[in-house]
Each structure stands twice: as structure tokens, then as C-alpha cells.
């Protein structure tokens, strides 16, 4: 069995926010991580520097996962660097924070192409390499919006609902390859920078607002997502597949 020191993870959208929390935890445990970013290279370089300063091993690759050629190159360059791939964490996503009436079909198409198309492409490209790993894992970062509607962003909720079922299908499809596939239904997380409309919550109807986001329930920290990913990638979690694990600090109990 490969040791953590030998194992390689590719985490999309890990230059900042939730993804950065995941790679920091993994690298602190000895994983070699490919940090992926698309739009914000400056923050991603900062994350890489922090990891290296702490003694971790990481590379930074920039790609648009909605582009098939770039998604393919992202996987291939990771494998070229370390010769293997053991863990794929799909995390790169965006949000608009629009009501249904404010959306247009081209925005939804773009969202779909990144938030779930990116996951779909990355898994397809990573699969040949994951099949060679002694302990392969796929983790899809989804959201509490995969189950609970909140008027937060209808298009975003659709993509997360799609990821929930995509995860279940793949858990069954890849069981024969010994690849567990799980999702994390992530709640509100404290991050330094987010896509979408930062003022959105201020004009949401009061009855649809989640008190958790008003500070009444604690937000999740990015590193806490990393610890859950680390567990899912461990031998101890090998029996877990097709699960959508809610990590939200109890926010959805409101």
C-alpha cells in the first residue's frame, strides 16, 4: 500500500477558499498536491507559498475546467509531475446569486458547464490514472443547496442537485474499479473571497434568509473540509461510497 508521502492529489479550485483549506490539510499530512486555479492566480500563488513554507509539496496549474482540452492537460500535467494520481477532489465552482427571473439560459449553460461539466470532465480524464492507484478516491464538493432550497441561487442549486446524483451513479459505476466516490454537502463556509453577488443576501426576502448566515450558527472553516476529505481518502473510509455528507455546522437544522 502506498504511503501518504507517495500519494498525489489533484484538487480543483484550490487556489483559495474551500479548496485551499483542503490542500493545506492534505499537504500537512504528506500528500503531494496539484493546486488548481483559473481566474485568481495571485491568491493561488499565496496558497502554494504557504504550503511550501510549512514543508509541504505542491505545484500550481492554471486551467479552465469548462474547456475539455484544458481539463485534460490539467490531469496529464499532474501525472507528469509525480507519475501518479490517487485522489481527485472536484471543487471548482462558481455562483451568480440570481433569482430565477434574473437568469438567462446562457448564464445557466456557463454555470452548468463549470460546476458540473468540470467535475464530469475531470473524472473522465483522471479515471485511467485513478484505476492504477492502490487506493483511489474521488470526492465531489457539493453543497447543502443540493437538497435544501433557499432562494440562494436556483441555477447553483440545480448544479449541486446534479452533483448529488452524479456522485451516486459513479459510486455504482466505479465500484468495480474499487474507486469510492463521495460528495460533501457543504454549508456556509468562512472564505476570503467568493464568486457571485456579495450583496445578494441583503435583498433576499427575509423569510428565505438563513439565520445561520447572520452569525447565529457557526460557519464551517475551509480546513474542516480538508479534514473530512482526508478521512474520505483514507483506508478507514474505504467502505464509504455514494454518500453525500453534510458538513454545515448544523446550519440546515434551522
Amino acid at each position, binding site marked *: 500500500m502506498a504511503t501518504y508521502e507517495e500519494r498525489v492529489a489533484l484538487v480543483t479550485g484550490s487556489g483559495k477558499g474551500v479548496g485551499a483549506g483542503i490542500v493545506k490539510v492534505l499537504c500537512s499530512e504528506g500528500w503531494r498536491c496539484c493546486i488548481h486555479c483559473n481566474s485568481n492566480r495571485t491568491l493561488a500563488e499565496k496558497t502554494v507559498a504557504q504550503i511550501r513554507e510549512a514543508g509541504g509539496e505542491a505545484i500550481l496549474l492554471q486551467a479552465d475546467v469548462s474547456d475539455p482540452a484544458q481539463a485534460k492537460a490539467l490531469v496529464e500535467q499532474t501525472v507528469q509531475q509525480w507519475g501518479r494520481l490517487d485522489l481527485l477532489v472536484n471543487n471548482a465552482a462558481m455562483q451568480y446569486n440570481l433569482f430565477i427571473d434574473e437568469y438567462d439560459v446562457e448564464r445557466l449553460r456557463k454555470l452548468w458547464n463549470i460546476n458540473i461539466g468540470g467535475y464530469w470532465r475531470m473524472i473522465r480524464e483522471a479515471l485511467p490514472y485513478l484505476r492504477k492507484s492502490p487506493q483511489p478516491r474521488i470526492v465531489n464538493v457539493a453543497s447543502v*443547496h443540493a437538497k435544501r432550497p433557499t432562494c440562494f441561487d436556483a441555477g447553483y442549486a440545480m448544479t449541486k442537485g446534479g452533483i448529488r446524483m452524479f456522485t451516486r451513479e459513479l459510486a455504482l459505476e466505479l465500484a468495480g474499479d474499487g474507486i469510492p466516490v463521495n460528495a460533501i454537502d457543504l454549508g456556509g463556509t468562512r472564505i476570503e473571497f467568493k464568486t457571485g453577488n456579495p450583496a445578494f443576501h441583503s435583498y433576499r426576502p427575509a423569510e428565505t434568509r438563513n439565520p445561520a448566515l447572520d452569525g447565529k450558527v457557526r460557519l464551517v472553516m475551509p480546513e474542516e473540509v480538508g479534514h473530512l476529505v482526508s478521512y474520505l481518502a483514507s483506508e478507514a473510509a474505504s467502505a464509504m461510497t455514494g454518500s453525500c455528507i453534510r458538513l454545515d455546522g448544523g446550519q440546515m437544522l434551522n
Partner: protein
Amino acid sequence: MERKGVLMTDLRTREAKEAFAYLGGLGYEMLSVPDGVCLWNETELEAWGKSLEKNLYAVIHPAPPLFLRPLSEQTEEDFGQAANEGILSAFCVTKVFGGMFRERREGVLIYLNSIHAEKPVGRGSLFSMGCGAVQMLAREVNQDYGTHGVRSFFVQRGISQYDPDGKSDLSNLYFGVEKRYPERKMPQADALNSLLAFLLTPGAAPLSGSDLRADGGMTMYYGERITEEQVQEIRRRQLLENRKEVTILGDV
């Protein structure tokens, strides 16, 4: 008295066709989307939709036909088509007609979908991701348009005799179907149709925003024990006969 109009957005599946005929028999004015109007072209759909505005009361949006293909054989084209048919069409229909109902503060949106919003078959990743997405759309619609008098429902229909069978080698869901129902028989089409008819009535208002699983209890039922030999025999026969209907285990 003017008849209430009910639009069935996609008539490719047998369930949709049968529901169309059934509801027409109840006195609804049944409407369908003409050739040349694309469900995922919002502008086109909106332009045509305006002609219905006067008496349109409800929209039923069926899921596209079941699509099963292994991940490694799926192409970008497949992904794009699944997005158009499974996702963007549901969204455009919602926005155009739900928006119309929202202004009027009355109307019903029914997403006639599938148990694959919950149940995987191992070869249906593109199809099921669409079902999961539309399930969330229906819930969001209830949050958003629901506050403006629009009722919305997500119906997960079970397996019917018209579904393709034997195409997923990773699930026995479509094998021995009859014995997968607690009552040992497949629900008849009228059972689904009468549910749709009920959802069109004001009496169904308290159910707005619900997921309604109309599967005869099969999803939550483990079914009768089927031996591996029986499964193999069913598969063998299906391959030989290239049958389109679901095989009944009792035939074996």
C-alpha cells in the same frame, strides 16, 4: 365556460403521451409544443408561449427519454445534449411559463420526472444528474414563485413497461420488475395519470413543493429474492430477443 389549458412540453415518452390523452379526456385543453420551437431557446419559447397566455393553467414538463451510457463512452456531445434536454429545457420552461403564472398569481408547474433523481443505475450519470438538478429546480421554484401563488410539484415516476431494459449491466433495477413491487404488479398508467389530475386541482395546494414518488413502492422495497441464475437467464433471454419491453420475471 372556457376549458383550462394544460401544456405538455415533451411528448416523446409513452407516459407523457398517455397522460396527455388522459387529461384531455377529463376536459382539459391539452397543448403541446409545435415543431420548430426549441425548449432550451428561451427567446423562441417565450415568443410562442405568449400565444397561450390567455387560458394556460398548468404546465407539465416530462423528463427526456432515459439515456444510459458508461462514463468512459460519454462524449462532449452527449454532455451538451443532456444539458439541453435535461437541464436547460426545464429551466426555460420554468422561467417562461412560471414567470407567466407568477404575474397572474395562479398556475401549476409539474415536473414529471423519474426515480433516477434518487436511484442510480450505474450507467445513467448524465441522465440522473439532470433528474437531480430538476428536483432542485422544483424546490427552488416553490421558494421563489410559490410566494406568488404558483404551485409546483416534482413527480418521481417509477419504472414502467415502456422503459428500456437491460442496458445497465451494473444494476438489477430493470430486471424482474414485477416482483420489485410490493403488490407484485406494475402500477398501471392510470395510477400516474390520476395523480397528475389531482395535482392540477386546488385541493393539491398543500402539497406544493413536494417530491411525490409515484413508483408503487418499488424504490423502498427490496423485492423478492432473485437468484443469480435467474438474473443471468433473464439477461440471456433479453440479449437473444432484443426485447424493448421490461421482462416479467414470472415469464421465466
